[in-house]
């Protein structure tokens, strides 16, 4: 396996944090997983991918049969990037390994948005580098279609290690859809994914991520975003399928003035799943705005729904909305919205609600002739409907499709 070229200092920090438990989520024993995987051959022609894998990828919005509606594609299976391409000369898409070979300056971007010693999982990614994707929009460029990235685990019991770097250079606009999935088997696996986003002055990234793990997968993504003046970051996260354990709490540091950050999360937690999901926004730049919106439904699994907004600059504004629905089963939803204001002139607010479907709403729809099941489905569909602005139509359609597919299973 190639080694990702990171600094000696990073390695030392990682070694020191190798046993450091994460702040949230159950502690996972990394030693129970395998960390090496065979190098898989590069595939120019994606039609060779198995139908099973294609189907799994499709459920996360990654299309491999016809990539004409994608500005770029990158697919990592286990630790191998088996395909990468771009259809625009001003959008770069390649493996992180290749990018580090190509650009000396890229090392400067490693572990700046996510701390290498944040916990044992970030340390593991540094000490056991797999691969990852590098996506960069050159200054002033704009993706015609979204770039798609897929992280796929095929090998049983593998701890997939991923380090992604995404850069939107000044004045660029980049739309990405990422699908994370496994082979369609109920076998243990782990995903450790570090994603570092750098949004330069007046640049925009929309990042739509759909997770479709197997019920035996343990997942620890670690995401950091650094934003310059006028930057926009729109994150849409969707998980509608079972997962053994998932804990993520991405953080956006809005360092420039007048940035806009929006985190939307749509979470469905089936029985046997444990999901600890949050979003954090640190408003360091004057006039910056943020919104964190989450919709969480449990049908028997356990959800921690976190949110944190910190205001450190004048005229910042943030709103956090966390709504949870206990549809059936004996799972729980624990909503923890947090706000911290550090100076006068900031405007932070939150609303959180956890409950069941109101019977009067069901009756209202039944009064119009809908059966109880139809009424319930309509209310759930409405609950999961998050107004998402700023996305190209292909991504809006993809999100809608992911939610609709899950709704069918739900009912």
């Amino acid at each position, binding site marked *: 396996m190639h080694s990702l070229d990171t600094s000696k200092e990073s390695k030392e920090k990682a070694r020191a944090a190798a046993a450091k438990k994460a702040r949230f989520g159950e502690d996972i024993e990394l030693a129970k997983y395998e960390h090496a995987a065979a190098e898989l051959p590069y595939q120019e022609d994606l039609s060779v991918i198995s139908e099973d894998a294609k189907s799994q990828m499709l459920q996360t919005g990654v299309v491999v049969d016809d990539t004409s509606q994608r500005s770029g594609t990158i697919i990592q299976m286990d630790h191998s990037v088996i395909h990468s391409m771009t259809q625009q000369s001003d959008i770069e898409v390649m493996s992180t390994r290749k990018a580090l070979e190509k650009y000396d300056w890229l090392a400067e971007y490693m572990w700046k948005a996510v701390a290498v010693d944040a916990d044992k999982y970030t340390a593991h990614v540094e000490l056991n580098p797999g691969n990852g994707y590098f996506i960069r929009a050159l200054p002033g460029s704009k993706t015609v279609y979204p770039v798609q990235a897929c992280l796929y685990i095929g090998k049983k019991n593998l701890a997939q290690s991923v380090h992604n770097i995404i850069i939107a250079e000044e004045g660029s606009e980049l739309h990405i859809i990422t699908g994370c999935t496994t082979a369609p088997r109920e076998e243990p696996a782990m995903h450790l994914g570090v994603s570092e986003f750098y949004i330069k002055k007046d640049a925009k990234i929309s990042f739509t991520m759909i997770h479709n793990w197997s019920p035996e997968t343990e997942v620890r993504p670690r995401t950091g975003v650094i934003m310059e003046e006028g930057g926009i970051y729109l994150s849409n996260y969707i998980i509608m399928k079972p997962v053994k354990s998932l804990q993520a709490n991405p953080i956006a540091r809005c360092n420039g003035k007048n940035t806009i950050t929006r985190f939307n999360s749509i979470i469905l937690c089936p029985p046997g799943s444990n999901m600890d999901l949050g979003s954090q926004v640190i408003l360091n730049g004057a006039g910056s705005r943020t919104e964190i919106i989450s919709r969480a439904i449990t049908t028997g699994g356990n959800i921690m729904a976190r949110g944190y907004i910190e205001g450190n600059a004048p005229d910042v504004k943030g709103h956090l909305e966390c709504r949870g629905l206990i549809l059936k089963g004996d799972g729980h939803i624990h909503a923890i919205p947090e706000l911290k204001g550090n100076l006068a002139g900031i405007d932070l607010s939150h609303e959180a609600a956890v409950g069941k479907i109101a019977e009067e709403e069901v009756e209202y*729809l039944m009064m119009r002739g809908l059966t109880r099941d139809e009424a319930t489905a*309509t*209310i759930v569909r409405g609950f999961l409907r998050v107004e998402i602005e700023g996305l190209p139509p292909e991504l809006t359609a993809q999100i809608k499709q992911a939610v609709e597919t899950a709704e069918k299973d739900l009912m």
Partner: protein
Amino acid sequence: MSDTTLEIKDLSVEVEGRQILHDINFAIKTGETHVLFGPNGNGKTTLLMTIMGSPKYKVTRGNIILKGTDITNLPMDERARMGIGMSMQRPPVVRGVKTRDMVTACARGRESEEELNSIFLSTNLNELVDRDINYGFSGGEIKRSELAQLLAQKPDLVLLDEPESGVDLVNIALIGHLINQLLQKKHPIRERMRSGLIITHTGHILDYVDARTGYVMLGGTIICEGDPHEILKTIVKKGYEECRKCIA
């Protein structure tokens, strides 16, 4: 086919173990509109919700007959599909469910998009179609939205719970016009296929909508039946105290 749309026979109803309605009897012929007067808290809404079939309202005695079929034990969605439509006084907010979705659901695929758009236009709802149903709606907006749903649903029996409450003077004329449209008032009575039962607290709606029969409900029972305008005149002049004398 029965020429009586609704027949209520010896109906008694309890809510959470408390008897609210006692021995209600009346009938509405096809094409007729009847009006129910009465002070607040005397069972008017309970009667409408019972006819609609809300599970909270338990029929302890008697029967509800719709177009010749006993519907006393049918669930509310079945009653709606059989031809009962109701406008609530304070309908709930359903977050994420748009006004357009509700009106479309009411049509159950019978109306084309063009016809639905015409309903939105006639009910002056165009600005609200993409908003969550009833969320932040004014009194007039709620009533117009409820009537748009009923126009799409096309029920044979229209139940209206205080359609004028919370509505300003500009909107009340439109509400009256929409109710007349819903109840096919332009047609001669023999051609009307829709019947109505309207609760009114103030009687203002009678300035816009013709009704054949009026009832006064006090203490959960109908104590008076007659010409609605005459009943209203008496109530306006002497209040419900006069009605109470009738049962003293």
